[in-house]
C-alpha cells in the first residue's frame, strides 16, 4: 500500500474510534471538552521544575483510554509522531541550566534536565488527552460543543465543512496519486514537476466542487446562515463526571499526592 493511502486510513481509524459506544463516548461533548481544557490548563500551569506533582495526572488519560476502549498503541504512535517538537523545544535546557538540583547516589542532576523532563511530561499529558478527546468524541460533537461554548459560528461551520470534505478530498488525492504510481513503475515519476501539477489539479477540482456544493446549498434555501438542531442536554451523569474530574484535578494541582503517599509508606 502507498504511504498516502496508509495515512488516509489512519485518519479514518481515528474517526471510526470516535463512533464507538462506551461510557466515555456517551458523555456530553461539552463536558468532555471543558474537562479536557481544565486538565490541559492545570498541567501547563505547573512551574518549570515540577515533576512529581504532575505524575498523578497521568491517571486521567489512562482512565479515558481504558473506559473508552481506545488501543494504547495507537495513541503512543501518534504521540511519537508529534514528539520531535517537544523534544527540540527543551533540548538546550540541560546545557544552559547546569545548576545542580538533586543528587541521586552522588550523581548530580542539573536543573536543566529536570525542566527538560518536565516539558516532556507536560507534552505527554496534554497531547494524549487532546488525542483521547478526539478519539472518544465525534468531530461534529466537538464542533457543536465549541459553538455552545461561544466560539464564533463562522469558525465552527468552517470546521464542520473541513471534516465533511477532508475524506472526499483525501480520496480524490488518493486516486490521482495511485494513477500516477501505476504508470511510473517504481521510479519517482517526474518528481517535483508532476507533484505541482497534481496540487494544481486538486485545487481546480476543489474550487469546482465548492461551487457545486454552494449550488446545492442554495437549492435548499441557504441564506447565509446554517441552522442546526442541537438536541443534547447534559444529564445527571455528565455533571457528576465534570464535578468529580475537575475537583480531582484541582486537588492534584494543589497537593503533592505522590509525595504524601510516599511519606505515608515510609513512616
Amino acid at each position, binding site marked *: 500500500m502507498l504511504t498516502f493511502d496508509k495515512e488516509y486510513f489512519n485518519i479514518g481509524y481515528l474517526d471510526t474510534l470516535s463512533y464507538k459506544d462506551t461510557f466515555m463516548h456517551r458523555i456530553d461533548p461539552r463536558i468532555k471538552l471543558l474537562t479536557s481544557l481544565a486538565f490541559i490548563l492545570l498541567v501547563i500551569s505547573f512551574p518549570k521544575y515540577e515533576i512529581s506533582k504532575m505524575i498523578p495526572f497521568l491517571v486521567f488519560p489512562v482512565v479515558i483510554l481504558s473506559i473508552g476502549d481506545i488501543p494504547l498503541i495507537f495513541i503512543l504512535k501518534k504521540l511519537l509522531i508529534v514528539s520531535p517538537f517537544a523534544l527540540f523545544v527543551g533540548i538546550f535546557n540541560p546545557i544552559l541550566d547546569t545548576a545542580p538540583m538533586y543528587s541521586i547516589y552522588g550523581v548530580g542532576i542539573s536543573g536543566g534536565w529536570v525542566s527538560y523532563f518536565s516539558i516532556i511530561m507536560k507534552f505527554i499529558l496534554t497531547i494524549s488527552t487532546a488525542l483521547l478527546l478526539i478519539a472518544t468524541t465525534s468531530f461534529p460533537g466537538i464542533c457543536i460543543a465549541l459553538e455552545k461554548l461561544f466560539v464564533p459560528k463562522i469558525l465552527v461551520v468552517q470546521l464542520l465543512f473541513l471534516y465533511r470534505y477532508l475524506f472526499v478530498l483525501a480520496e480524490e488525492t488518493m486516486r490521482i496519486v495511485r494513477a500516477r504510481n501505476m504508470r511510473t513503475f517504481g521510479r519517482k515519476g517526474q518528481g517535483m514537476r508532476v507533484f505541482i501539477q497534481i496540487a494544481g489539479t486538486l485545487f481546480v477540482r476543489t474550487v469546482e466542487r465548492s461551487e457545486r456544493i454552494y449550488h446545492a446549498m442554495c437549492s*435548499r434555501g441557504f441564506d447565509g446562515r446554517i441552522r442546526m438542531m442541537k438536541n443534547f442536554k447534559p444529564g445527571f451523569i455528565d455533571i457528576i463526571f465534570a464535578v468529580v474530574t475537575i475537583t480531582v484535578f484541582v486537588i492534584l494541582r494543589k497537593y503533592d499526592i505522590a509525595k504524601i503517599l510516599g511519606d505515608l509508606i515510609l513512616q
Partner: protein
Amino acid sequence: MSHHIIDFKDVHFAYPDRTEALSGISFRITHGESVGIVGANGAGKSTLISHMNGYLMPAKGRIIIGDAQLDKTTRSDIRKKVGVVFQNPDDQLFMPTVFDDVSFGPLNLGLSEERVIERVNEALNTVGCYDLKDKPPHRLSLGQKRAVSIATVIAMQPDILVMDEPAANLDPKSRRQLINLLKEFKHSKIIASHDLDLILDVCERCIVIGAGKVRADGPAGEVLLNEKLMKENNLELPLSLQRR
C-alpha cells in the same frame, strides 16, 4: 392544482467562455407529469437543470415556474417549489450527519422543530434510510448516499422534483430500488439521465435535447423507440428493447 407548471420559452444561455449551451429551448411541463430528459454528453442537460431553480439565469427567453416568472426576486420562492437532486451525492450532502443534512432544508423553510423532526423522519422512511440518521455521510455506501440525497430534497416537500442522473454508478439492485421509489412519487418529476431503461420505466414523456435545442418531445414509449432519432443523438434503443 394546476400551478405546478414549468414553462420554458425560447431559452438561450451561454457560459462566460462563450460556449453556447442552450440555444432556444421551449417546452411546457404540466402538473403531475413525469418527464425524462435525454441527450448526448454536452447536449445541455445539466445546464437546463441549473435553470430550473434559478442557479443560472437565461440570457434570452423566459422561464415560468408555477405562477411566477424566474428572475432574481422570485428565485428564492421558486427554490422552495423545485427540489433538485444533483448528480454527485457528495456535493449534495454537506452536513456532518444524515439528520443534519435532511433537516437543513426544512429548517431554512422556517418550520418549528417538531415539524422538522416529523419531516425528516418521514423523508428518511420513504427512502428506507431511517436507521442511518446519525451516521456521517462519508460512512455511507454510494447507494445510501443517493437515497439520502433524495430524502434531503423530499423533506422540503417541493412541488416539482428534478433529478440529474439519479442512477449513475449504482449497482443493479440499488438502481432497481431507486426506480421503484421514483415510481411511487406523486410529484411532477423531471429526470435527466443516460439510463434510457430507467426513463422508459419511470417517465411517461421524454424530451430529447441536442446542441442546446429540443430534438424531440413526446410519449417516452414512442420517442425512445425511434431508432433513427436515438442514433442521431448519440443514444441507442433502451437495452430492454434491443434484440440480442
